[in-house]
């Protein structure tokens, strides 16, 4: 059953939904074969120094409560089905952040016989955070960039990639920075 609303109401509803979504994204973390390095950095983002909870970001135990799936590790064959199942259990709309080099491409484990080689081989990914492991700041940056995209501030096509020159103003070529300051 779908509810048909006229355009104004639908727009207002969408706005409200986006507002609610970006104000307090709840995350779930799944390790699909990671070495733990990224996991402890994700945990570090929740603890007093980085404390993402002040932005309303909270780590949940159940996929059914979560908006964002934070994945680490090259997907091992045994964890693959679980990853897909967790992804399917999450309510729409859902977003996936791949954290760490091996979540992006297999990283150091690329070529090992038991891995799929990257989260995007199994489920669609919305943001990529490279690093072995990425610093907590980079993970927070990934979440913030993803939220900016949901808000419509960032209209570039494709997934968010942290550290890519185009995506990160700090790494942009020199002339652009001069223009911005001028």
């Amino acid at each position, binding site marked *: 059953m779908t509810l048909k609303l006229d355009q104004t109401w639908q727009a207002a509803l969408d706005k409200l939904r986006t507002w609610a979504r970006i104000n307090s994204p709840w995350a779930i973390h799944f390790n699909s074969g990671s070495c733990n390095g990224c996991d402890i950095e994700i*945990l570090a983002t929740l603890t007093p120094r980085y404390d993402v909870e002040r932005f309303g970001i909270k780590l949940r135990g159940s996929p059914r409560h979560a908006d964002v799936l934070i994945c680490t590790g090259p997907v091992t064959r045994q964890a693959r089905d679980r990853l897909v199942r967790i992804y399917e259990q999450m309510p729409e709309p859902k977003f996936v952040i791949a954290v760490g080099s091996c979540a992006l491409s297999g990283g150091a484990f690329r070529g090992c016989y038991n891995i799929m080689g990257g989260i995007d081989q199994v489920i669609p990914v919305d943001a990529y955070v490279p690093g072995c492991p990425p610093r907590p700041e980079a993970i927070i940056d990934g979440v913030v960039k993803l939220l900016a995209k949901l808000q419509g501030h960032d209209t570039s096509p494709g997934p968010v990639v942290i550290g890519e020159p185009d995506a990160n103003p700090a790494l942009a070529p020199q002339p652009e920075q001069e223009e911005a300051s001028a």
Partner: protein
Amino acid sequence: MPTEKFVIPIGPQHPALKEPGHFEFNVDGEVVKAASVRLGYVHRGIEKGCETRNYVQAAYLVERICGICSHVHATAFSLGVERLADVEAPPRAQAIRQIVAELERIHSHLLWVGVAAHEAGFDTLFMYSWRDRETVMNLLEGITGNRVNYSANVLGGVKCDIGPEQAEVILEGLRFLEERTRHYLEVVSTDAVFLRRTRGIGVMTRDDAERLGVVGPTARASGVPRDVRVDAPYLLYREHPVELIVEQAGDLEARFKVRVRELFESFRVIRELLAALPDGDLTTRMPRRIKPAETVSRIEAPRGELFYFIKSNGSDTAERVKVRTPTLPNMASVVVTAVGHQLADVPMILAGIDPCFSCNDRMAVVRQGGEAEVWTWERLRQYGIEHYR
């Protein structure tokens, strides 16, 4: 007729731990009657991967067996390969390896205190210990440039030096950490609410500990005096020994105490080493190809004895690398000690051994007798596909 059983499955994705592992608990009401564990969700095939990478590349790979105790993996591998090549790292490199290893132990134990307190619902301690852990992370980052997976080791030495200014920063950090650790020791041994969750819970007697073959702080909390740093000193542990910390009770409280008291030993050893840091080179020449030989390299990781078997064949690639990580023997003790406890205590008992699933997911084939056989890459790949279908 089999009695009716109520099975509670937990995992592989579960809120208690950050790593996948699957447990099944047969419960009668709230009491656990039997437990079983299924591992292997993080099996990536690292041992086989080491056979296709040369020694330098393999050192990078074994460091990623575990992100928490990455330095000990790299050190154990480096020590083994150096022994095969008849090369010894210069004394200064050994001292720096030991300093980083002890700093890593501090980071790992503080991490564990936090996680185990979190399992008990004591989130205040979790947040405090993780806040203080950032101090030691800063020290590690200052020495090696990385917060996690430090890559301090190269074959034949270390790649980072500790200067006088850096040493001063480390000593300053240790002063702060020592004061905080004293506070944690007080909390875990006197806090009445916390003791209700730890005292007399998950008791493992000395006999059980010996029989199950547990290692590391888990064994030492049951009165088993077992520590590779003392039993078979490596690096500079002969010149700068650590004292064996043993508790007799065998319950969770003892495991907390052992780990927190070990921190003081780590502080002391790091101070000793910094005061008597040998001069000299950081690296020595290392041959690319290593003559055929076999060696065993043992190291005390934060979780217990880490075992490496390395076999060389004359080329620049290892013939075989076998890793046995401390969580594997300790995991069996969970299944035994959990029986008879309330289900609510199980996360604590599990956290009590400081499990690290990414370390222990190895593949083992058990056979009775017969000839030795070698599994090829294709056969392992096919086996992986069929086994996990």
